[in-house]
């Protein structure tokens, strides 16, 4: 590959230019119906668990971790004590620690921005937003608005999504009926296809999958995501240069 852009693609410094806002929103658009449906189901669950709508909105706004909120509300303790809150915090951490890996992988890109711009941007890390941004980066993109613009739209949709579900709690109590639980796996699968770069590059994926399965069936909770992902990444580090 001797294209003039090629050598710098993965090292291009981040910059801000408005023309990437619309493409960034377009890239996360496939996530929006699923996010809406997930938020609907989550709002319905919260209504059943006797949270107020104001409380639900505060959680949506400040925690902003879809799966972790679902898991936390499902196992919400009857009595909030220091120890039951600590248990919730541990549960949330096991679900969300993957965000640390995601923001780590954004460092070569966003690390070229001043910290006051880079750190607030990392608050927008979500599975979908991060995946779309990584794909954009892989094609040589460096415009920070691509990630931040899409991320803000995803955040706003998420904030609004739980309200109708809360109000219509009865109809939506079973999100599986509408295939809502398939949104993330299907989006992941769709992202994996273009990431395919041959058998050699897929060896870490196999290791990640094997370790994740092993942990899933032996350790309770959500450690399988982080341990599988770390195993895949470390194995890539141990492989010889290509």
């Amino acid at each position, binding site marked *: 590959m001797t294209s003039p852009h090629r050598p710098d693609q993965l090292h291009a410094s981040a910059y801000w230019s408005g023309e990437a806002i619309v493409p960034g929103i377009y890239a996360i658009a496939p996530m929006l119906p699923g996010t809406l449906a997930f938020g609907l189901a989550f709002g319905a669950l919260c209504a059943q668990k006797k949270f107020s709508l104001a409380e639900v909105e505060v959680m949506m706004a400040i925690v902003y971790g879809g799966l972790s909120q679902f898991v936390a509300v499902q196992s919400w303790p009857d009595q909030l004590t220091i120890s039951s809150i600590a248990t919730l915090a541990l549960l949330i951490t096991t679900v969300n620690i993957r965000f640390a890996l*995601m923001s780590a992988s954004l460092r070569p890109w966003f*690390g070229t921005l001043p910290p006051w711009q880079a750190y607030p941007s990392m608050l927008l890390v979500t599975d979908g937003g991060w995946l779309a941004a990584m794909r954009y980066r892989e094609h040589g993109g460096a415009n920070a608005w691509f990630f931040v613009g899409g991320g803000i739209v995803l955040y706003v949709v998420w904030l609004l999504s739980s309200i109708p579900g809360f109000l219509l709690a009865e109809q939506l109590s079973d999100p599986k009926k509408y*295939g809502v639980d398939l*949104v993330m796996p299907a989006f992941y699968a769709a992202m994996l296809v273009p990431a395919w770069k041959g058998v050699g590059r897929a060896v870490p994926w196999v290791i990640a999958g094997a370790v994740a399965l092993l942990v899933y069936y032996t350790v309770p909770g959500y450690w399988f995501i982080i341990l599988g992902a*770390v195993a895949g990444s470390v194995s*890539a*580090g141990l492989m010889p240069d290509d």
Partner: protein
Amino acid sequence: MTEMLRPEVMFAFVVMMAVTVASRLGGFWLMRYVTITPRVRRMLEALPGSIIVAAALPVAVDGGVVVVGAIVAAMIVTVVRRNDFIAVFTGMAVAALARAAGLGG
């Protein structure tokens, strides 16, 4: 609604926010102290695929035939159409229809 925002619930939410923010910022912050050698770059490049597989594979295996079928359908659509939107919709539709037809999982 007598209690719109119960204080103890707000406290729990703030703790949940703190650990989530720490996760989001922590990885980025830690990488400040890591030099991007070729080895580190290989590790970072392998992360997206590894996270995808680690997060989705156990859920798919555990979800049984409906979930595996829905994911495979989404992947086929991606290969054929390269459209994430249609892929996600296909995955959801396959699962919803299979469950409506009485298949478990």
